[in-house]
């Protein structure tokens, strides 16, 4: 009995064309990138653009008598902006002659006017100042009470005093955070100045700008990116996971539909069960690859926007596609088997449980393995199917990729796993296709495989 590649191609093409042109699939394909863009780009921008600038007054009661000027300086908008720039991760090192540093994204800088009060002012009486209707101008935002020993320690005390903060119910969290950071910096500066030290010199001496690592390899040098190295294993894992889940689910659903529509026997009049199975697997593979390719192109475009696309090793894309293919064939075959064995999608849930657990567990490991790509655990996982493909792609995408022989060994082991799973799936598929009635258990599926 020979298997006709032409028939396999026809089945694959029909499945692919039917699904790729379905409105539901196209929406599903676009939902993911739209969500990512919305979550990481649009929503922060919208939130920032819609946040009005906060303008208001802050009463300061300086019981220490030494922090008022520092606090007034720390609350100047220019100082708040300078602090925000310093707190931004990956800020570039200042270089002589370089243009002004870009302003980091975020809400508009608050304009906070200090209302100084004498050290003996009554806080309890002043609290009523904070109660005012929304929209009143000027807005009374907070009362800061600097404790007497906040700048100079009490004799015999190892610690400095702090401050008390009373806020209006209208004060937002961002402005409160700005206020707290300003008070912290003002108190630290006042303490240093009292101790005879220059706060500016000390602040400057504590700043060490983080350079991008230059990776020196046999093929030359290139600049690394710690953020990208952390993100890539996770991203590769999720690409494989989404592709396998989507392709596998479509495969399972279409098989269940063909069975419940009773079109299966019509098809079996024209093709053998094996041709049908291979055709469906191939169609699902093409769908998953299309989806993965779309996401990869979008990801590359996003990286290019941050000038990071050049940091990607082209072989990573090759490996990603190869590992996607073998992972899909293993999990897709299992899902196809389940689809052939049941009559309705609801019946598939119990059989899908173990497959989903295996898939999710494999994917979850990518984050862990990406952080420690050469640990014994990571290396061991790279050779145990079906986890090995996720483990290896996480290692390949990490900052310290494994030697090529390990990658190829993983691929070889995966190919053997594919042969075993497809063999099992083919056995069950032949028997299960015409079975109706009570959905089988996992043990029954194994029995069918032995019967075939």
């Amino acid at each position: 009995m020979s298997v006709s590649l032409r028939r396999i191609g026809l089945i694959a093409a029909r499945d692919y064309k039917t699904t790729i042109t379905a409105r539901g699939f196209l929406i599903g394909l676009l939902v993911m990138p739209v969500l990512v863009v919305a979550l990481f780009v649009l929503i922060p921008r919208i939130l920032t653009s819609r946040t009005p600038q906060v303008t208001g007054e802050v009463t300061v009661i300086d019981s220490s008598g030494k922090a008022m000027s520092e606090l007034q300086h720390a609350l100047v908008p220019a100082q708040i902006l300078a602090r925000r720039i310093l707190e931004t991760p990956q800020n570039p090192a200042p270089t002589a002659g370089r243009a002004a540093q870009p302003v980091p994204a975020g809400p508009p800088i608050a304009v906070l006017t200090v209302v100084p009060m004498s050290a003996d002012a009554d806080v309890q009486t002043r609290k009523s100042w904070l109660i005012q209707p929304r929209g009143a101008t000027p807005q009374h935002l907070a009362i800061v009470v600097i404790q007497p020993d906040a700048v100079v320690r009490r004799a015999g005390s190892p610690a400095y005093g702090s401050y008390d903060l009373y806020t209006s119910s209208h004060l937002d969290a961002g402005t409160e955070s700005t206020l707290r950071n300003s008070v912290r910096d003002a108190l630290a500066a006042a303490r240093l100045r009292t101790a005879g030290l220059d706060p500016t010199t000390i602040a400057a001496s504590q700043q060490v700008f983080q350079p991008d690592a230059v990776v020196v390899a046999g093929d030359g040098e290139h600049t690394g990116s710690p953020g990208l190295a952390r993100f890539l294993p996770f991203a590769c894992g999720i690409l494989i996971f989404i592709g396998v889940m989507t392709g596998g689910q479509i495969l399972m659903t279409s098989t269940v539909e063909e069975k419940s529509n009773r079109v299966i026997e019509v098809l079996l009049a024209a093709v053998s069960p094996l041709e049908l199975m291979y055709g469906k697997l191939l169609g699902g593979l093409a769908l998953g690859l299309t989806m993965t390719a779309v996401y990869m192109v979008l990801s590359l475009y996003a990286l290019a926007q941050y000038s990071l696309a050049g940091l990607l090793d082209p072989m990573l894309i090759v490996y990603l596609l190869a590992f996607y293919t073998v992972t899909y064939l293993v999990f897709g075959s299992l899902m196809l088997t389940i689809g052939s064995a049941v009559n309705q999608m609801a019946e598939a849930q119990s059989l899908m449980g173990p497959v989903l657990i295996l898939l999710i567990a494999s994917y979850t490991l990518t984050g862990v393995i990406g952080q420690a790509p050469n640990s014994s655990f990571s290396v061991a996982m790279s050779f145990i199917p079906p986890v090995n493909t996720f483990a290896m792609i996480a290692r390949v995408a990490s900052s310290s990729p494994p030697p090529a022989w390990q990658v190829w060994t993983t691929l070889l082991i995966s190919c053997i796993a594919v042969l075993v799973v497809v063999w099992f799936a083919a056995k069950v598929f032949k028997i299960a296709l015409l079975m109706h009635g009570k959905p089988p258990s996992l043990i029954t599926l194994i029995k069918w495989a032995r019967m075939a």
Partner: protein
Amino acid sequence: MTAALQIQGVRKTFGDKVAIESLDLTIPQGATYGLIGPSGAGKTTAIRMIMSILFPDRGSISVFGQGSALDAKDRIGYLPEERGSYRKMTVGAFLTYMGCLKGRTRAQAYGRADRMLGRLGLTDVNTKKCEDLSKGMLQRVQFVASIINEPELLILDEPFGGLDPVSVRLLKEVIAEEHERGATIIFSTHVMAHAEELCDQIVMIHQGRKVLDEPTSGLRRQYDARRILLEPLDLGANLLALQALAGVENVRLNDEGCEIRLLPGTDPGTAIRAITTLVAPARIELARIRLEDVFLRLVSESGGPGESQDALRTHLQGLSTTGAIS
């Protein structure tokens, strides 16, 4: 000439249930065979094994000299009992797809589909989705799918189920045309009248065993008639008096008159003459033997399991049973 189908010593079981036992069958090319028997007799299982959808536990099946139907699928047309379609596909796309799977080019398949749809009174459905068709229309479309490749062997499993009389007539005509074209036809049914009308040869299956394999014409001679139907001229005539005639086994009254059953070996001509001397007939005829009667006689003569004749008759008229394999 190579036989279209050759089955030798085939046995098939599902768990403890024996679906087919020691089946031998040879169908020459160009013949029309009726595979008949009550629902659950094993007809569909036999057909699925012929199509290599199921595989026998024992024995061999050869189609056009090939060891498996899988190697001759492009030469076979098959209309399964449980037939479906892709609901969201258009009729034209569905039939073209089936034609391509059967080794035809898109143009060939589309052209043949268009012609056959027209022949079956389904012009203008090419662009309609399968889900938009009525059940009867869809059945005709499914029939077209089975002959889209101009098969040399056409296997039809209960092709007339659920069809209206006009559609049944159209289908019968097309089946006859396919036969004239040279196709070998295997026709499975539990409605004996259809088999009598369409088939050269009848194969009866009961409880997985072949109980008859005879030409339709020979059956009538071999299983001679022993029933005489009488409609008296005088509606008040005493028909029960016929019971006393020599060679009469029994007399059953019915709305139109009576049915007289003869004892084995009685000459029907002598009996008819004797009857007409007692009762003047408006109509008297020797009833033609029906396949149903042959089947029932064979089953009872073989001393088969104690299923009553009434129950068998009911099965033969169309009640179905369900099993694990459908």
